């Protein structure tokens, strides 16, 4: 199964070229939040889209009527399709749409339930259901782009997009789908959801954006919420070759496992099991992995346990590791798609993007995380970790074209 197209929308860029330039240069996509008043919070920073110009390319009925997250998904999915060389949507195509999202159409939910609380039953508009149904992003992408494979949403918190990509990979391998646009969309910068995260005391209170998200640093202070939508066009190699599609990289394997322990506390057992299953699925061993894009959220607990898991998985021969959330923040249900794209581009360019803002090593996280500068090094196989609240761990393996066994 090959990746033939990429669509991306986040503070690090509005297409794969902008994204890769940002990641390779270690650019910071975290800044003071502007879209809502943060006076009630002592958390000020987020990974916000720098502007809303992207909205103008959407059909008015979507841009005006639908949730911001739905529009973001359509923007990134359209881009991935075009990047794969499919420029016309005049005819229906047998392509699936698998979307990861942790919170779904959150702005539409806020408006819909806001109307309910303000005016009761009479406040509910006729289109509230279609705007707030959890699968709306997958549905709108399918309808607008005339894609007739299955369309569905995967909800597994921070592992949502990785699960969507992993299941798309297996759906193509099994013959259920021929091609799938797989990815995720999320905007946790909706004020009520932001307040809920704030109440959980896991957000970084650091006022300086450049020091706000510091995964694996001894002085890390928590995660930084960010918005984004990212899609990969996945297709059967034979089909891609038939239409002479450009191949960016291959999906080599997918593994998932739940901790089965606690709703938020991470556990090394589930993480190692997911990594092992991904390697088994790909027919690879730990020594084959050149680069790991870590989950690396910059919470004390995540990074400590993930370092333990990486050491348990790879022993003394650790691959290169980095935590790119230091640049793009935590996009929750979309983050696995963004980081899988970065893994694919790392394979393409033989470059490991950095963990920026890194100052002080943590003795409890004894892993080298490619601090502050990208490293040119051969990347034939890359692993992306996504470890979610709820206990779900999803691990994807990506490789250079032709790397699959």
């Amino acid at each position: 199964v090959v990746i033939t197209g990429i669509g991306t929308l986040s503070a690090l860029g509005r297409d794969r070229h902008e994204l890769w330039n940002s990641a390779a240069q270690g650019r910071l996509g975290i800044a003071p939040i502007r879209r809502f008043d943060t006076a009630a919070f002592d958390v000020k920073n987020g990974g916000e889209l720098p502007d809303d110009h992207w909205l103008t390319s959407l059909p008015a009925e979507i841009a005006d009527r639908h949730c911001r997250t739905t529009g973001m998904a359509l923007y990134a999915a359209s881009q991935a399709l075009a990047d794969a060389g499919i420029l016309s949507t005049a005819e229906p195509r047998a392509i699936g749409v698998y979307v990861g999202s942790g919170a779904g159409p959150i702005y539409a939910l806020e408006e819909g339930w806001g109307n309910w609380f303000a005016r009761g039953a009479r406040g509910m508009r006729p289109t509230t259901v279609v705007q707030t149904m959890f699968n709306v992003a997958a549905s709108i992408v399918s309808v607008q782009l005339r894609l007739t494979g299955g369309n569905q949403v995967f909800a597994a918190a921070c592992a949502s997009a990785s699960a969507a990509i992993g299941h798309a990979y297996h759906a193509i391998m099994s013959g259920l789908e021929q091609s799938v646009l797989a990815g995720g969309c999320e905007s946790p910068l909706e004020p009520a959801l932001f307040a809920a995260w704030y109440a959980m005391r896991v957000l970084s209170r650091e006022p300086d954006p450049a020091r706000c998200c510091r995964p694996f640093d001894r002085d890390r202070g928590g995660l930084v919420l960010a918005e984004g939508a990212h899609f990969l066009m996945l297709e059967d190699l034979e089909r891609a070759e038939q239409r002479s599609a450009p191949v960016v990289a291959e999906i080599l394997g997918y593994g998932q496992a739940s901790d089965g322990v606690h709703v938020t506390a991470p556990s090394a057992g589930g993480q190692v099991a997911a990594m092992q299953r991904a390697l088994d699925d790909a027919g690879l061993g730990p020594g084959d992995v050149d680069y790991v894009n870590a989950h690396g959220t910059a919470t004390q607990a995540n990074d400590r346990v993930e370092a333990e898991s990486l050491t348990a998985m790879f022993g003394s021969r650790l691959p290169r590791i980095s935590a790119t959330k230091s640049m793009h923040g935590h996009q929750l249900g979309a983050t696995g798609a963004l980081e899988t794209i970065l893994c694919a581009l790392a394979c393409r360019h033989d470059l490991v993007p950095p963990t920026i803002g890194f100052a002080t090593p943590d003795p409890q996280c004894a892993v080298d995380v490619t601090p502050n500068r990208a490293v040119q090094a051969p990347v034939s196989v890359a692993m992306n970790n996504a470890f979610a609240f709820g206990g779900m761990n999803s691990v994807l393996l990506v490789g250079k074209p032709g790397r699959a066994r």
Partner: protein
Amino acid sequence: MSLSRDEIHGRLRALVEHAKKGSTSAAPITDQTAFAELQFDSLALMELAYDVEETFQLTIADEELADLKTVGQLVDLIEARS
């Protein structure tokens, strides 16, 4: 409240323009204009009905909504009730 047909048309025009957002139809909004010409689907018609109910403080029954084909029919319905 009693509204003239012109007043109803004036208020309704804005609601129809709002509801047809996204449609590429350039059809003018007159009594004869069919909602099909405006490329209204069932969701757009329901959104329009909701706005009409709110703006003119009336109720449109399901069967009345199903029978609405033209702007003029909607104006008739509003005129009869306002």
